[in-house]
């Protein structure tokens, strides 16, 4: 159904995996013709690679102005490629780049928009999507009419691994920008390196009170010889420092044992811990999404379970 324009994102000099997930989503839409778009400076080869690995005919905006991500440059480049390709659907990954620019494209083209989708398909005069709402607690089926811009959640579907015919084609656009890129600041290392711990005990907003972290969460981490972690609201509230944060904007960890207490399981937390070898979730809400990634779940008050577990582990060690 129409042309689907897949916008690639380059990370550390390569097209990131999330872009190939978009290709897979586009390939999965009945009757769609897939086109790609690569934006950057000196990206001719990457555009050819994208064209041959599933994106088919790939538009390329290769300009010194696009050396670093810039919201104005990207929105003008994508709008120009949308016009050149006549795309009915424009797919962008829901990354910090995607959520910054994608809604602007929809507003600029005065067309339908939906974000962070986990499924995409052809619809009736538009497209159908599935996405999560209420921080993962509910799913929504969304349909659009006419031309559509959509972002897809990274990791929701497997990346495309086949090949395709197609070459790169330059598209020109006025790339003048109001916003100015200044620099990228990388996170400073702080000594708290959760990635080295065999056991991580993380507390979430459900812990409710900053004092409870040293009183309840840290002792369980200590008795297991592990480290304490936290979800983002705990860090936002200033209860713990940023190095303790697990998730997409914190540390990505994969310990032998991850215990999540009072954490609901929003996607941004899950991406930071779901690769753990064994996951125990303690939450009083039986519908909390954390139970979907956990191996063992305890539906109970963490203030009953965590201290009792600390004591029992201590006793078992003798």
């Amino acid at each position: 159904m129409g042309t689907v324009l897949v916008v690639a994102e380059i990370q550390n000099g390569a097209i990131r995996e999330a872009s190939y997930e978009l290709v897979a989503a586009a390939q999965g839409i009945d009757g769609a013709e897939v086109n790609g778009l690569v934006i950057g400076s000196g990206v001719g080869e990457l555009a050819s690679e994208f064209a041959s690995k599933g994106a088919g005919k790939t538009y390329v905006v290769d300009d010194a102005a696009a050396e670093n991500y810039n919201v104005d440059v990207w929105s003008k480049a994508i709008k120009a490629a949308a016009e050149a390709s006549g795309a009915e659907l424009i797919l962008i990954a829901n990354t910090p780049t995607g959520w910054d620019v994608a809604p602007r494209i929809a507003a600029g083209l005065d067309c339908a928009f939906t974000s962070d989708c986990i499924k995409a398909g052809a619809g009736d005069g538009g497209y159908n999507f599935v996405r999560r709402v209420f921080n993962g607690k509910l799913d929504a089926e969304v349909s659009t009419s006419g031309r559509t811009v959509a972002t897809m959640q990274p990791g929701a579907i497997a990346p495309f691994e086949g090949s395709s015919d197609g070459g790169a084609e330059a598209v020109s656009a006025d790339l003048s920008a109001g916003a100015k890129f200044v620099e990228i600041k990388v996170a400073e290392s702080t000594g708290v390196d959760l990635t080295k711990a065999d056991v991580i005990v993380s507390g979430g907003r459900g812990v409710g009170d900053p004092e409870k972290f040293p009183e309840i969460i840290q002792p369980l981490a200590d008795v297991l010889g592990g480290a304490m972690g936290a979800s983002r609201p705990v860090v936002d509230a200033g209860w713990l420092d940023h190095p303790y944060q697990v998730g997409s904007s914190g540390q990505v960890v994969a310990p032998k044992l991850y215990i999540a207490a009072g954490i609901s399981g929003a996607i941004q937390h899950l991406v930071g811990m779901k690769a753990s070898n064994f996951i125990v979730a303690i939450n009083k809400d039986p519908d909390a999404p954390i139970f979907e990634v956990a191996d063992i779940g305890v539906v109970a008050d963490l203030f009953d379970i965590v201290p009792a577990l600390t004591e029992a582990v201590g006793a078992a060690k003798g």
Partner: protein
Amino acid sequence: MKVMVCLKQVPHQDARLDVNGDGTWIQEDNIKFEINSYDTYAVEEALKLKDAGSADEVIVVSIGPDRVTQALRTALGMGADRAIHVNDDAAAGTDALATAKILAAVAKEEGADLVFAGLMADDDNASAIPPMVAELLGFPSATGVVATDFSDASVKVERELEGGALEVVDLPKPCLIAIQSGANQVRYASLKGIMQAKKKPVDVKTLADLGVADSASAAQNKTTINKIYVPPKGDTAEILSGSTDEVVGQLVTKIKELGLL
């Protein structure tokens, strides 16, 4: 400098979420609402500018039904100067683009030099409206902002990327900034603030007042939610049952099996 803050009232984070009768949204009767968490940080960011003397006026704007007055009063209690409440049945259930058109119309009418919003609404999780408002106004924008540094002609912002990296961007004014949670320490409405807020104006407007009745109502939606439901349980956890002692006993056994004891 005139500063506008877009704020949404959403179900309280601990509210019980039940799907409504026609299965397209949640049951909103008898649940508590609050200011969207991200927007509280946006209000604070605007009030900091006022404290510093660089904002002349902070205007909070919300689209929603009668209950939204409460959220606006709270923001006024924190220190905002006045509020605009777009309350119109035709604006109920607007999609992101229609909502953005309404907010852009307010920003234009007010002549806002700076627009703040939250990165994302805790209910629809769309992260859509702020960049749309910016596009409609022709403003540069940045989302996921955790730090701001204002000068006369521009504002330097730090945007959060993945894994703790930050991108520093300089935006010429007028511009729009969508704030990420944790960007600042949000103040509470003081008792004095709440008393003063009672005297502050809340302007109620309709889509017709803003001249967008034909372009930005729910009837113009291009995106529709057809169905909302509890996600099907996939490969879910084994749920332990029993008394606290029994559950803890099973956990200890498991931890031993994992070779961690």
